[in-house]
Structures are given as structure tokens and as C-alpha cells.
């Protein structure tokens, strides 16, 4: 379980999160919505302990992670698989080495086994023909797929975290990524948290919606509550949704 308790965070003088609190179970499918620069990605980084809050507590499975050092954070971070915006693939490595990277570093498997698993993972995300390509040769959609394959490579985790998984993609590739995210969650039976500013993506994939506005949570609810919400910021944001559905 993830608990945010009155969490404040600022970049220099700019306050990004102003006392946000929420609780999330690992098996939930949550979308964190809001405008760009509104602190959505900051929430993911706080969950992983990549940054520390100025104030407040972040509790993962009963452990307050705000006081932990890098070594102590490792088992907490292993509970999650993350796919950062645009994939965060290592530029200097071909696709198969990107996917193999953490297997080689963490699992210490023999090369033969690593490459067998790499091929299997690439096939699973639908980019089996790209294993020899460099990241710069991949399309945006392929980038995300390879990043998802790499996130799957280190083994089963409790929750997937996706940072803007469809940003910059055309509608067809967005649809493919959404299908992949949903299929993985169904097959692995684990939840996910998606950071996005595209409400349609959130609507298709999630059953809980957290809406951030000026560093505060202004809405936290399910699909019905989202549609019926009278909060003007939320209503403005979901206009696109009414048009698309």
C-alpha cells in the first residue's frame, strides 16, 4: 500500500506539491491527471524515493521511506516497475542490450539465458524485429514498448508506474500502448499508476482518478464521480473526454 500523508515538495522557490494526501493499493489502476508542470511526475519520483519531500510522510508497505538512504530504498524500489516518459533507454546500447541490461547487472544470468528472455520479452511487447536497432532508430511507440520490456525483465513487481506513456504518440501507437498496458496488468494481475494529461488514456485504462491542480488534489474518485464532478478545473479537463466517448 502507498500512503502520502500531507506531502509538500518544492523545486527551489517553486512549490509543486502543497500538502497532498492519498492512499493507494498496489492492485488499483490509478490515473494521476493534471496540467503539465503540475507535479504529477514528482509524485512518481517521491514514491520511488528518487527525491525527498520537504514535509510529510510517504509510507510504502508500512515503511516511511522519507528517512531511508539509497541502500535501504532498494527493496522498496523493487516493488515497482517504472516506465519513464519517452522510455529512458540507454542511448549507447542496442535494444537487446537495453532489455538485457538489468538482467545482466542484477540477476547475473548466463548470456544464453539472458538473450532467450530478451527475445521472449520483445516478442511479448511486439517489437521482436527491433533487437539489433539502436534507440535512435526506434519510433516513439517502439521506444515505449522496449522500455516496458526492460521494466518486465527484472521479474514480477507489485505495481507498474507509467509516466506519460502515450505522450507524443500518434493515435494508433497510443492505442497499442494502452492495449499493452491493460494486457500486462490483466495477465500479471498487478495494478498500475499512470501519470498523464490525456484524460482519454486515463479513462480507457483506469478506475480511479486523482486530479492535481496547483499542487493540491482537487479530485479523487472513480469513473462515475469523475463524470459527475462539479469541480470547474475537472470539468474543463474532461471536456475532451465527452467529445471522444
Amino acid at each position, binding site marked *: 500500500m502507498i500512503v502520502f500523508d500531507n506531502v509538500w515538495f518544492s523545486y527551489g522557490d517553486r512549490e509543486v506539491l502543497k500538502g497532498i494526501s492519498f492512499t493507494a493499493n498496489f492492485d488499483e489502476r490509478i490515473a494521476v491527471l493534471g496540467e503539465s508542470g503540475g507535479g504529477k511526475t514528482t509524485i512518481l519520483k517521491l514514491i520511488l524515493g528518487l527525491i525527498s519531500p520537504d514535509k510529510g510522510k510517504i509510507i510504502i508497505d508500512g515503511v516511511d521511506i522519507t528517512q531511508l538512504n539509497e541502500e535501504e530504498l532498494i527493496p522498496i524500489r523493487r516493488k515497482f516497475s517504472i516506465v519513464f516518459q*519517452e522510455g529512458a533507454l540507454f542511448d549507447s546500447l542496442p535494444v537487446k542490450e537495453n532489455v538485457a541490461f538489468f538482467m545482466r547487472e542484477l540477476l547475473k544470468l548466463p548470456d544464453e539465458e539472458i538473450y532467450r528472455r530478451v527475445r521472449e520479452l520483445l516478442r511479448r511487447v511486439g517489437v521482436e524485429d527491433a533487437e539489433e536497432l539502436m534507440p535512435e532508430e526506434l519510433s516513439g511507440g517502439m521506444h515505449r514498448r522496449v522500455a516496458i520490456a526492460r521494466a518486465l525483465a527484472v521479474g514480477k513487481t507489485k505495481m507498474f508506474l507509467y509516466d506519460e506513456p502515450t505522450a507524443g504518440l500518434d493515435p494508433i501507437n497510443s492505442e497499442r500502448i494502452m492495449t499493452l498496458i491493460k494486457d500486462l496488468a490483466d495477465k500479471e494481475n498487478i495494478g498500475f499508476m499512470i501519470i498523464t494529461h490525456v484524460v482519454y488514456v486515463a479513462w480507457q485504462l483506469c478506475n480511479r482518478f486523482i486530479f492535481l491542480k496547483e499542487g493540491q488534489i482537487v479530485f479523487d474518485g472513480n469513473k462515475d464521480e469523475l463524470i459527475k464532478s462539479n469541480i470547474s478545473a475537472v470539468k474543463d479537463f474532461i471536456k475532451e473526454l465527452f467529445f471522444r466517448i
Partner: protein
Amino acid sequence: MNAGNQIKKTLADLQDFYLLSINSILKLFKRPLYFDDIIEQMEYAGSASVFIVSLVCLFVGMALSLQLSAELSGLGLKMYTGKIVGIAVIREIGPLVTALVFIGRVGAGQTAEIGSMILGHQIDTLRVYGIDPIKKVVIPRVIASVVMLPCLTIIGDLVCLIGGYYIAVFVSNQSGSFYWSSIIEELTFQNVFSGTIKPFIFGYLISCISCFYGLTTRGGAKGLRTSTTKAVVISIITVIATDFILTRILFYALGFNV
């Protein structure tokens, strides 16, 4: 940002830089050590820099020899060109010029590369999976710089002296054998030691500064430009200031008369 916050930020940055520099030494003795990354960085910092270092040092050696020949011939002391070029290059100009070229080529590259990894969340990805960026990213660059800058300095010294030889012999009409013999005379322990100890320290400082600014890159392309510029400027100032301090210490320790 007001003055108080600026001071606080500067002190925090200094503390972070100090921790990074210390950790890059302490974590050297902890497994794993990424040999492939070290070799890759050594190739980038070393063999790929030989041409540019040689080119710059050749012209510096020629300019130095030309200046000295012109001044000394007026005093009837032209035969000391080799001796003075030798001392200046081995003790001071070789290490310093090579370090400055190294900052521009390798240091700036290290900052830009790491900064780009920060902006692309590659460093965050390493941290998420429990791989220490200091061990994986910083230490290979520090080792490469500490090992390769002294090697480049030796090459730079030699090319500088060859440039000086060309001017002394073919422009100033001096004896080539006398030029080299007067340089060999200056290859004393004190001169060679004071010229070879500096590149190790410069290499360590340049890579620590470059990695630090790379790791603290924020704010997209503009942030990357700022951090790379800062890394280069701070490295140049640090290397020149350290050169003076080291020279003063070495003069005292090795018994040079001032």
C-alpha cells in the same frame, strides 16, 4: 533568488561536490567495478584525444620557441632556447595546456553526456533498479581521466618540444643536437616529478567537477547548456588555481630556489 538563498545553495552545492569527490574514491574499493565502462571511457578520454592534444601542443611549442628565440637572440643567449623551452614545457606548459584541452574535449563531454542521462531519466532508471550511478557512471570517468590525462600530458610534452625544435632549428638556425641535449639535461627528478604529478590531480578534479555538474543538470536543453558551461569555466579556474598552489608546494618540497 535572494542573497541568503544563494549562499545556502552554494554551500549545499559545495557539500554535494565534496561528497561526490570522496565517494568516487571510497566506492572504488567496493564491488562491482565496471571494467567495460572504464575501458570505454578510457578510449574516449585517451586515444580519441591524442590528435587534438598533439595539434594544440605543437602550436604552443612553436609559439613558445619563437618568442624565446626572438628575445634571447637579442641578448646573445639564443642557445638557451632548448633549456628554457624544456623547463617550461615539462614543468608547466605541457600539463596545463593538455589539461585545458582535456577540459574542453573530455570534461565538457562528460557533463553533457551525464546531463543528458539525467534529463532522459536514465540515471533515475539506474537508481530505481539499485545500480549506484556513482559506481556505474562517475567512477569509470574519474578513473579514465586520472589514467589518461597523464598519458596525454607525456604525449603533449613531447609534441610541444618537437614544435619548439622545429622553430629553433629551421627558423632560428640553432643546432638541433644542442637543443635536445639541453632539454635532456633538464630531465631531472625535480622537473619530471613536478610535471607528472599535476596531471593526476588535474584529471581527478576535472572529472569530479564535470560529473558533478552533469548530475546536477536541471531544466532541459537550457539547463544542459548552463551546466556544461559552468563545468568548463569552473574546471578551468580550478585547474589554473590548483596549478599555482601545486607549483608553490612542489617548489618548497623539492627545494627549488625562487
